[in-house]
């Protein structure tokens, strides 16, 4: 119980401190921080459109957060969610823009599956190299990110181009687009958010209720002990990377099928890397990750409204950076917390 309280307290305190520091920055540029935060909250949750926008932005962040968080639980640092997201979306787009005749009941799950398998396979390359040769996944996944970038730009300017000369694929067939939950103006909330939450449930159940999950966690805690206990480290490293990659691939797929409806040159746009910070803030816990992703999604959505007040978008990036810094260095926060308790 105490441990749970602590793991919630750290990110919450970090957010509060970050907001206070950002308020000072806003004051320093001559704006009113209360008004600025007011418009931030209004922009993120103030009306239906804002809430939809926040959920749209949070969906891929939940999934990349889960991808990286899952990796952390297994003791692997998957920095390549960006590339796995891209390759997943690319594979799905290639399929879904060419096979239009299928009914939605087949097209949607099949397209999703293809994207997830592509992401899983891409990450498993790094897992395999780590398991068999010891090549560190941080290096290999980053290299795979670069390869993805170039494959993607080749595909969208070559075989998958619209013919109009712009770096995007044709629209995927309507039968492969995710059903819309809600539509306000030009904004559409797809069922991607439901998929993201289901993925979090999957991660929770898998890690806590299955033997494979237990083995993966054991390898993450202490690979030597796990090996000694008869658990194959290399098998589990590859498996963990593959599942992590599948989750990242799913992030790309929901962006493709639910938001853009086509593959764009820079579809991932840094969301894979955001996954690292979200996993950190969410303490690698699936439920924590959902909240962390919504927090970051809301900050970004709200920051657009803040800009109309004349407060730069970069303020929010400062806030986000401070949160990550504090959570990563949560010992600082814990030290403050511990001292307070002693004083009390």
């Amino acid at each position, binding site marked *: 119980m105490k441990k749970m309280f602590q793991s919630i307290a750290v990110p919450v305190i970090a957010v509060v401190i970050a907001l206070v520091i950002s308020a000072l920055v806003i004051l320093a540029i001559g704006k009113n921080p209360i008004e600025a935060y007011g418009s931030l909250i209004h922009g993120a949750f103030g009306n239906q459109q804002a809430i939809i926008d926040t959920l*749209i932005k949070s969906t891929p962040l939940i999934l990349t957060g889960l991808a990286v968080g899952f990796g952390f639980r297994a003791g692997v640092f998957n920095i390549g969610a960006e590339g796995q997201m891209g390759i997943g979306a690319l594979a799905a787009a290639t399929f879904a823009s060419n096979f239009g005749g299928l009914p939605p009941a087949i097209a949607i799950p099949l397209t999703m599956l293809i994207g997830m398998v592509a992401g899983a396979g891409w990450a498993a390359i790094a897992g395999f190299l780590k398991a068999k040769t010891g090549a560190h996944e941080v290096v290999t996944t980053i290299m795979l990110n670069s390869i993805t970038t170039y494959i993607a*730009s080749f595909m969208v*300017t070559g075989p998958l181009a619209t013919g109009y*000369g*712009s*770096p995007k694929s044709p629209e995927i067939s309507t039968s492969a687009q995710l059903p819309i939950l809600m539509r306000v103006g030009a904004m559409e909330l797809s069922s991607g958010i439901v998929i993201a939450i289901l993925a979090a449930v999957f991660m929770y159940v898998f890690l806590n209720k299955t033997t494979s999950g237990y083995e993966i966690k054991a390898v993450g805690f202490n690979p030597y002990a796990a090996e000694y206990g008869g658990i194959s480290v290399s098998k589990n490293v590859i498996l963990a990377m593959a599942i992590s990659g599948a989750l990242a691939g799913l992030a790309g797929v929901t962006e493709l099928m639910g938001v853009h409806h*086509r593959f764009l*040159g820079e579809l991932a746009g840094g969301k894979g890397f955001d996954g690292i910070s979200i996993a950190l803030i969410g303490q690698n816990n699936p439920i924590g990750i959902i909240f962390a992703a919504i927090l970051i999604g809301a900050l970004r*959505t709200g*920051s657009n409204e803040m800009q109309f007040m004349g407060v730069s978008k970069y303020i929010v990036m400062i806030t986000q950076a401070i949160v990550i810094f504090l959570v990563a260095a949560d010992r600082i926060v814990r030290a403050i917390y511990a001292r307070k308790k002693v004083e009390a």
Partner: protein
Amino acid sequence: MKRFLVIALLAVLFTFGFSFKAIMVTDTGGLGDKSFNDGTWAGIKKAGEELKIETKVVMSLEQSDYVPNLTKAAEEVLKEKDGGVVFAVGFMMQDALEKVAKQYPTVYFACIDFTPSSTLPNVIGFLFKEQEAAFSVGYIAAAMTKTGKVGFVGGIAIPPVERYRYGYEAGVKAYQDLKGKKVTVVRGYTNEFSDPKKGKDLAISQFSQGVDIIFAAAGACGNGVIEAAKEKSEKLAGKGLENIKKYALSGKALYYAIGVDVDQDYVAPGVVLTSATKGVDMAGYYGVKWAYTGQFKGGTQTLGLKEQGVRISQLTYTKEIIDKVAPTVLKEIDYLQGLILKGTITIPDSEDALKAFTVKGVKLPK
């Protein structure tokens, strides 16, 4: 009495003024790119000051910001008594703009560098004949290179970037045809428009392949190209315009960059040989003005050399260097631009046209 009424009316109008707003939504490149977004914004601000109306800019950080930002901007404009205009800057915003513009038929939208796939009465698309400016900088590059290799660094191979490249390569080809000097073009793309480091890496790799002049059509990535050329040249000649000039005028080889979209010559004086500029500022200016005065007409506006929508920079810092190294080149460019205006030569705007392009029939005046 009548005169008094008119004056009173004017006074009332002047105090209350028009409540009209111009809002610009940037692409992911954002303000501070020293090129395309900054240029458009400068034009909008100029119109805003002239007409005494409020102007605002909203930056997009990711692609999924386009729809919400355009929507918010349109909502904001709707609140004004006299409406306003929303600018969508950048090719990648096309899908988002089409969705939003259809939702707000009473709001004016102006697009920079793209035009919606079907004509909408409330949307104007500004396109440019980038190739007509790039032709001249390609010609200068071919005249100035000492290694016989010039570089091109593009962002993403979207039509405006490719039009720059076609024009640039056509300029190089024209110089070869007219002067018989062999010059090859090395191409590369950064695959994005926002990270200067990627431009710098690519520039360094091109320099190491023997390229000595690079034309960057890559948004903010281009700043990295300029930085790479600056570092290389400063190592040879020392810091500052004076040193660069002295070194170049003594006839020794240096490394140069060529700027894009706006006059970037000032970014690294002496090192940025010239810039192929396009009138994004003019588009910003007229977009606001037309919407304000009611002259706004939906459709496409293509601005070229003739409309003064594209040109090369003033050569504030490099004119002496160019005159010294290639004494006749600026005169020749004047002449060739005259031919473009007359329609005698057409600068290619596609790969096929580039392959077919030649100026073999042209005779330069003595």
